[in-house]
């Protein structure tokens, strides 16, 4: 993750659920296959046209429903740079950060224009519309979570921690 991401905004409504993000019918197969159906029930163009670095802007309670991480992995697979919403479902939010996908709570997300080119600064949690210059404030992540996202998620974080432990044990 770089500190700042710029991409096209894909805008969605309230209560986007995990069955829409990762439909059960495709859960047995590969993530690449599943990702082709990501959000297709609400926006059939999304999986076909989304580009790496694009930004998903959702409404309230984004990611509600199942605990399936594939909902995050599908967005990751498609190269989505960040997910912005006024509120997230708890498990999805934890999953996103655990997998290294930047998820920011932005009370004003509703004002962001569909199809805008948006720059997201992860550290300051500032969002900026490149065409209009309009800025939006998101809630910054606590430093340890920001670091975990920057590291690529919980697994990389654990990897580091275990390595430190092992080298300590080796020295003892």
């Amino acid at each position, binding site marked *: 993750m770089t500190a700042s991401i710029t991409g096209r905004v894909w805008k969605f409504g309230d209560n986007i*659920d995990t069955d829409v993000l990762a439909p059960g019918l495709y859960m047995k197969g590969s993530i690449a296959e599943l990702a082709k159906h990501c959000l297709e029930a609400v926006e059939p163009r999304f999986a076909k046209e989304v580009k790496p670095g694009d930004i998903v802007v959702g409404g309230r309670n984004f990611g509600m429903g199942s605990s399936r*991480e594939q909902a995050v992995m599908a967005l990751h697979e498609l190269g989505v740079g960040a997910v912005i919403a006024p509120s997230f479902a708890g498990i999805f939010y934890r999953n996103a950060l655990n997998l290294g996908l930047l998820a920011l709570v932005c009370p004003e997300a509703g004002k962001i224009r569909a199809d805008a080119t948006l720059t997201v600064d992860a550290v300051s949690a500032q969002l900026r519309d490149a065409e209009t210059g309009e800025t939006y404030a998101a809630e910054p992540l606590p430093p340890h979570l920001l670091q975990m996202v920057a590291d690529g998620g919980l697994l990389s974080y654990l990897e580091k921690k275990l390595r430190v432990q092992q080298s300590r044990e080796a020295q003892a």
Partner: protein
Amino acid sequence: MVQGMTLAEKLVARAAGVTQVRPGEVVIAKVDLAMMHDSGGPRRVAPMLERLQAKVWDPNRVVVISDHFVPAVDAESASILDLTRKWVKATGVTKFHDMQGICHVVLPERGHLRPGMFVVGGDSHSPTGGAFGAYMFGVGATEMCGVLVTGEIWLRVPETILLHWTGKLGLGISAKDMILAMCAKLGMDGGRYQAIEYAGETISTLSMQERMTLSNMAAELGAQAGLIAPDEVTRDYLLKAGVPASEIDITTWQADSGAAVAERHDFDASTLSPMVAAPHSPANSAAVTEHKDVTIHQAYIGACTGAKINDLRMAASVLKGRKVASSTRLLIAPASTRTTAEAAADGTLATLTEAGAILLASGCGACAGYGAGVLAENETCIASTARNFKGRMGAGSSKVYLGSPYTVAASAIAGRIADPREFLS
């Protein structure tokens, strides 16, 4: 003098090894038990553990239940189940239930839960365990891997949202109607990822299975946990499940009388109607009378939410001596093999099949579009499951209404959404 704590605070404080916690504070909790299923479990965590070259912190604290891809319908699902069996064996996990039913029902049925426990589950309906006075919540596979390696998890101490029920439920009205009414009132994010506690005289009269329905759908309220303080009903259930009496503490795990809750909502069971949720949200709930005359192609009694023994008995009480309409089909997937055995023993199963119900294997099945009973384009279904999101039970254009097992059974007889009270006396 310590300030009074809510049940959620007491449970979290114990797991965090402290005497007092305050909402909003971040703590690290020790996990008493971790539950995984075949979909989010070994097939996802095994490669992660390998990458970390780490071992499971305590195989005795891990329960694995294969329920999503059961029984295997193709080579892919068969290999997921095979991988699960092999991993469990190699890891030394002995608490493994293969094709015995849906995890949230099998977990307490086999005596793994006790009041006071702190439990994580690799599934969003993990709040079901809250019905037993345990703090249980759902996590994704990566976070589960973290728990498996460390035996710990961080959480923000939740606020408590009290959902208080008084009055007696009428004939043909059940916990499912209560939770749909709460979804309609609070919305799918009303729980704000905090802890819900269900309380009041109505709750204390409910069976464990009915309480599990409420806790299960705390997930649909967007809460992290859905707690019910344990009582004699809890104790009786757990004793039957083989839990030693000495491990069932129903006195400690109660909210203090002066404990402060963040929100309180009151409900009256005596004025409640059978509720039906229209597509595509459980929060789209209204009295069944609002949805009458919706023609249905399929009626489905299944899932952790709506196919426990009492759910099957509700359906049987409506279907007794009647037939499923020829224009529709009624599929029933009992929540566990024990449920099936109980229903066979007391004649419930015979009543259901005589009415024309088609019995399916115990497992998640069509609930999330994984198994038998999925819907075609433009079909309409009424189901006793927890979720009716777009495309969840099959084709993208299919529509799912949610109702209690009474209402699903009544609708199967009528071939359209029907009020179960018309069939009961």
